[in-house]
């Protein structure tokens, strides 16, 4: 049932995400309904059984992420989708998936918060929750598409990264990207690579949490003959709990290293008109779309503007931002929150050039004209 040839369809970001998940080989979905993510569940509830896969609506979001972690342990690619309140409920078990290194994809179609907030209106208020929502020191991978087509591509990438690095990956759509309808060409299967988690090459001396150069230990599927123990407690290479300080340190540093040493592979940015730019935006998701319009307006009025667009939000593109600081004389960080990523940008820039934030939290998207106005006023032009 794979698309062997390209078809053109008009679909939403949510639908693109669901379709791409199937294309990536996802065969297990568990979730709990919440606006503005429910279309993902609805689409998959009809499609997954056709693929022989599993769709189950759980009793809440805690159960949903528990179920996908359990399913993933048997070797199947698994996902859930939610929005702010549900994402909050998932945090403890996201930490479990990180600690026990169980691949899975969590889609959060962001809506306004805190609390029930703005169920149908856009926000980018969960970007720090995605980074630090679960307790303890950890690295996390989060991707932020800015179009329907990118929802598709990044969903596939989310599964690939999750499998390659044995880690949960968070796909952050904002409500606008989730619900906007755009024409897109559904890529044929040959157009993308699908990765599978590393599996043990032999059954001899299997160490489920072996320290490997890549930092990623091979993972055996439950129920295939290699019996091992999985726990959220600090554990040694055998997977069993340990209180040995050296072993604890070794584990936590390896979990850190497997992301940080591969950050060049994980971090993707779009460098948009940066070559001759003097001012630039650092933006992601729907705010990047607004910025693109604003760049046109600015260039029309003679201001050389560009954008460093964060396609991977976490780990953070610190190196890329640092690289352009200087050449770029002023950064602008437009976000649908009160400046969560602006602080990261400031940290990356380390005072070399000024960073200005532009924030909106009233449920409205960023209007390119008001952003244009803001930039001009800030630059006194």
């Amino acid at each position, binding site marked *: 049932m794979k698309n062997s040839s390209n078809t053109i369809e008009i679909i939403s970001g949510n639908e693109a995400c669901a379709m791409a998940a199937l294309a990536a080989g996802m065969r297990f979905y568990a979730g709990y309904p919440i606006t503005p993510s429910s279309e993902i569940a609805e689409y998959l509830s009809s499609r997954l059984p056709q693929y022989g896969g599993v769709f*189950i609506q759980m009793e809440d979001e805690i*159960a949903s992420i528990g*179920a996908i972690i*359990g399913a993933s342990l048997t070797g199947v690619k*698994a996902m859930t989708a939610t929005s702010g309140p549900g994402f909050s409920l998932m945090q403890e078990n996201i930490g479990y998936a990180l600690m026990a290194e169980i691949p899975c994809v969590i889609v959060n179609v962001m809506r306004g918060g805190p609390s029930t907030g703005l169920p149908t209106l856009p926000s980018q208020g969960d970007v720090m929750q995605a980074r630090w929502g679960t307790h303890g020191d950890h690295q996390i991978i989060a991707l932020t598409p800015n179009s329907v087509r990118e929802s598709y591509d990044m969903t596939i990438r989310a599964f690939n990264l999750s499998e390659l690095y044995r880690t949960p990956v968070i796909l952050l759509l904002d409500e606008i990207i989730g619900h906007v309808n755009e024409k897109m060409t559904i890529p044929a299967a040959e157009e993308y690579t699908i990765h599978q988690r590393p599996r043990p090459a032999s059954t001899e001396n299997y160490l489920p949490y072996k320290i490997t150069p890549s930092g990623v230990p091979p993972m055996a599927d439950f129920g295939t003959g290699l*019996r091992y123990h999985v726990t959220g407690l600090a554990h040694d290479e055998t997977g069993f709990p340990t209180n040995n300080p050296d072993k604890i340190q070794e584990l936590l540093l390896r979990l850190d290293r497997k992301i940080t040493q591969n950050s060049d592979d994980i971090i993707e940015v779009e460098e948009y008109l940066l070559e001759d730019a003097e001012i630039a935006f650092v933006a992601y998701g729907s705010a990047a779309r607004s910025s693109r319009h604003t760049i046109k307006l600015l260039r029309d009025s003679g201001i050389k503007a560009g954008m460093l667009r964060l396609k991977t939000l976490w780990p953070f593109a610190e190196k890329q931002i640092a690289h352009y600081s200087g050449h770029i004389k002023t950064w602008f960080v437009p976000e649908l929150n009160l400046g969560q990523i602006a602080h990261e940008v400031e940290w990356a820039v380390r005072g070399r050039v000024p960073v200005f934030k532009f924030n909106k939290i009233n449920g409205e998207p960023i209007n390119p004209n008001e952003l244009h106005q803001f930039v001009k006023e800030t630059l006194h032009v």
Partner: protein
Amino acid sequence: MFDYNYYLRTSKMPLIWCAGCGDGIVLKSLLRAIHKNGFTKDNVVMVSGIGCSSRLTGYVDFNTLHTTHGRAITYATGIKMARPDLKVIVVTGDGDATSIGGNHYIHAARRNIDLTVILFNNQIYGMTGGQVSPTTPRGKKASTAPFGSFENIFNISGLAIAAGAAFVARTTVANPVQVENYINKALQKKGFSVVEVMTPCPTTFGRRNKAGDGVDMLKWQKEHSVTIKNAETMDPAELNDSIITGIFVDIDKPECRAEYQKVIDQLKK
């Protein structure tokens, strides 16, 4: 002699359980019941939450998964839905299954998903030092109920019955043969099965409530157990301080994963 060691990860011994803890008796009965059913070790997945009882999964040689507090049933549901051919057993405590995990417990029963839950009811939070649990009897002391609990308790088996489980039984570690028999029956059931095993925690419940050591607590269990058959003829007031034991439900009804398979098969046609 039954060869327990075949199923145990002996290199992980000694167990973390205290002397006099009832959990080891459940472990032995569970292994005998698994053996009796002839499951291979590769085909058993044992999933636990957090608590003293939930530490059991570290000591047995199956595919074992020690999850987060209260969530074992959700992980087990994912495993069963993904790999219905595997035998999935959940090991959990009274706090794990019916306090923090209560919602998952009743929904798994409602779905009648093919899981066997071994519920260690020691009427206390053992692992964290003896705080009050939803099953601590009114008047009994706990570290967070210094004047005795003032709350009503959950009837754990009753909860599973009301929510739709296919097999529900209660017994005590004072009767290990019965523990084994009930687990054996639960394992044979295609559907959601619960065996509630009353097990003493001398360290945190016994000490505070002057119930004596493990042996004294076993004696108490023996003296206060009443079979469901006898209980039916007794005045409820007489049963206040009793443990009612027996198989409460043993029925066949549509099972969640099997019903889902019908959807898949229907679409293939």
